[in-house]
């Protein structure tokens, strides 16, 4: 199948509004075949695991690429130089950034907009937005910058604006915008990186400011703290978020996305933490034991594998480093599955790299 045809089918698949196991399987096998045929490093990877066009019978058989591989391998069906859009992970432990190449953003954008409308916008077609993240121009390789730009252009009113620039966080601008809608009663949407939201809350707290945003207002945060602000437990974060902006916790929505995906997961608010995340019908997740690759019994903690049909040019099945558990209606994220809970006095990778960087 040509790439153009695959893109067409994927757009139709998204438009179909739902997919049963069989339909998902069919599409997943077509995407796998495309990746296996066009993407040499992925073919090597799959073959080494004895997963070929002949042996892969279901989407569950499609070998999941560890996200660390995006740093070492060029996983792109189309030659990278033919891909006008490259999303890169933010700074990483080794200074190498994982890359996802996109020959077209047609599928990415459709995936984002269809899902965003359903999971974030509620009854609104457009909302006045404040964005706590740099623009797409400032960060051309950031998938989140693109995501937020898309949110603003497709779902924001003309008055929507960014509050992060080269000069940093525009606290005064944010206060002005928040005060205005507080006065006019226009529902407002605040979107951005979780750490920027913390910075804004800290700045507001310093000035003794809090808001009661009009009914219908909502907040979207994403990405965790990544050492960019102090760590905050989810319970505390959403408690403060709600108290600072006067937005009920059920409308404080967390988006879980990755550079290595073209589809995002959302929760239905954060009245209880950890919230339940779920995605649309073109992405499915499994919870596995990372050592054996076997699915863990339902309800047990494992590492998340996502199978995102929209990520057609790279690798649609990826093995994350996120611990999670499958629950009714989706999964709960339980932080990173790394050596943070190491038991001994033997130095673990994270500490070592930190030490090496400090030199």
């Amino acid at each position, binding site marked *: 199948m040509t790439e153009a045809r695959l893109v067409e089918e994927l757009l139709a698949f998204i438009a179909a509004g739902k997919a049963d196991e069989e339909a998902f399987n069919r599409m997943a096998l077509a995407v796998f075949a495309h990746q296996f045929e066009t993407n040499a490093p992925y073919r090597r990877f799959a073959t080494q695991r004895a997963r070929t066009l002949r042996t892969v019978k279901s989407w569950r058989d499609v070998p999941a690429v560890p996200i660390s591989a995006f740093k070492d391998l060029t996983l792109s069906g189309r030659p990278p130089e033919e891909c006008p859009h490259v999303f890169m992970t933010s700074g990483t432990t080794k200074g190498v950034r994982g890359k996802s190449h996109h020959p077209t953003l047609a599928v990415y954008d459709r995936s984002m907009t269809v899902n965003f409308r359903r999971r974030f916008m509620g009854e609104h077609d457009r909302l006045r937005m404040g964005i706590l993240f740099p623009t797409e121009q400032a960060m051309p390789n950031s998938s989140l910058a693109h995501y937020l730009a898309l949110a603003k252009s497709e779902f924001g009113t003309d008055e929507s604006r960014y509050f992060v620039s080269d000069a940093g966080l525009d606290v005064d601008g944010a206060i002005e915008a928040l005060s205005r809608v507080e006065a006019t009663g226009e529902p407002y949407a605040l979107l951005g990186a979780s750490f920027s939201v913390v910075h804004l809350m800290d700045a507001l707290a310093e000035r003794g400011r809090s808001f009661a945003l009009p009914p219908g207002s909502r907040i979207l945060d994403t990405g965790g703290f990544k050492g960019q602000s102090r760590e905050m437990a989810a319970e505390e974060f959403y408690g403060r978020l709600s108290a600072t902006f006067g937005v009920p916790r059920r409308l404080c929505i967390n988006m879980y996305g990755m550079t290595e995906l073209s589809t995002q997961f959302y929760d239905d608010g954060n009245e209880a933490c950890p919230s339940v995340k779920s995605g649309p019908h073109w992405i499915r997740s499994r919870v596995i034991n990372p050592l054996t690759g076997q699915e863990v019994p339902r309800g047990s903690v494992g590492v998340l594998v996502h199978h995102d049909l929209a990520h057609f040019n790279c690798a649609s099945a990826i093995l994350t480093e996120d611990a999670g558990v499958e629950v009714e209606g989706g999964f709960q994220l339980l932080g990173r599955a790394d*050596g943070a809970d190491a*038991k*001994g*006095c*033997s130095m673990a990778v994270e500490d070592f790299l930190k*030490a090496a960087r400090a030199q």
Partner: protein
Amino acid sequence: MTVGVMERAGHLPGLSADAVDWRTLTFRRGAETLDVAVPVLSEAQVAELATRVRANARIYLKSRTVAEIAATIDRAVARLLDRGDPWRQKAERLLPLVTGYDAEMVRLGLTGYLKTFRGPELRKFIAEDFANPAVLDDFQPMPKGGFARAFGPELLLHVWAGNVPGLPLWSLISGLLVKAGTVGKLPSAEPLFAGWFAQILAEIDPKLADCIAIVWWKGGDVAAERAWLTRADTVVAYGGNDALEAIRARVPITTRFLPYGHKISFAMVARSALDAGKAGAAARQAAYDVARYDQQGCYSPQTFFVERGGRVSPREFAGYLAHELDALGSKFPRRPLSMGEAGSVASWRNAEETKGFADPSRALLGDPAGSWAVAYTDAADGLSPCGLNRTVTVVAVDRLAEAVPGLAPYRAFLQTVGIAASPEELFALAGALGAVGVTRLCALGRMTAPEAGWHHDGRFNLLDLVTMTEIEGSAERAADAFAPYTD
């Protein structure tokens, strides 16, 4: 299924169990569960215990000779070495459950470790640090003139960490040998052994055991930690650098602070050890160092530098090592990993595998269940941490000495080097390794079993704990003038 009744951890001389709040830590291994009750002390109880331990040490411990104290420790250790003793049986039964380590590995490990604390070995501990051990008991003449005596702290606080069974014994015994009133904070990952040892001491010499308190607080509980830190004369702490930094920030400036941070260790195999007859044995010993306590110890090897030019190539050695790890896996299965640990192993393996796609000279040997893995590289890779839990990298080098300069950035973190090389190579490498910060060289197969009197991280187990009180020659001579017999 629950094993026995709830196990009560710690040792709180003078405090009745009913007066103390207890928290339950639950340990699971397969279908077995063990509840361990750990004490949660109020500030008033901390103060009371600190005062009591300090006073008891002043009255009793300081009046004993170091030889008498060593004899009591020896008797306690003898009981733990006796497989018929109820304490030993309890240790063999419960420690595998708590730590997850294979029962046979725990049993062998305990015996090997405890042997280093028998009477004669304790004398080595003392002799390593004190040319004249009597200096711990009384003023002794000094070569420079005058007299000196070594005093241990009245209250020594140990903040232990980790799950390697029995590890707290090292500093606990060091403290007792310098007659320190002792408070030890149990590691949550293995909260039993130190308390048992204090209770055994109580059966042998109750007064000595009254100079020891074994307590617990939740890691990061700032108030509890501060209550103890401000009452100690000296603090010995184990843990990662972040944890140590947090503790140090709360230790008063007048209190001596002795941190033992996480370390990285590695091994070197010279071509002289790589002939057909010797390479197999070297690989077997190397695998043992890797498997023992699943690389949780600071002395556990994470990288093997293997020299080219021997009859057995580095690549072949990696194969031998893989074979031996596989064999050890059935004899001493790895303990069940938490999801985080499994994630670390998996991401290391995945990264190694991915590098192999780009560089065909790399290889990853491992079993499908992921219970061990050996990565091999021809590239001039330096020291790098692996995923722990029986994962190692074998790095081929032309000359072992070439690997040394690359270690320099990690000076603060280097500890043990297991080495298989000829005497000349050993001493030549030792000089270079010592210069970049390595503090211990040992035979392959001995990396996880330091000998008695080992200078942990290059420091002095006992000497670091004491202060010297000196009677200068002038005082002695001046005193003469005031003697009744003076002319």
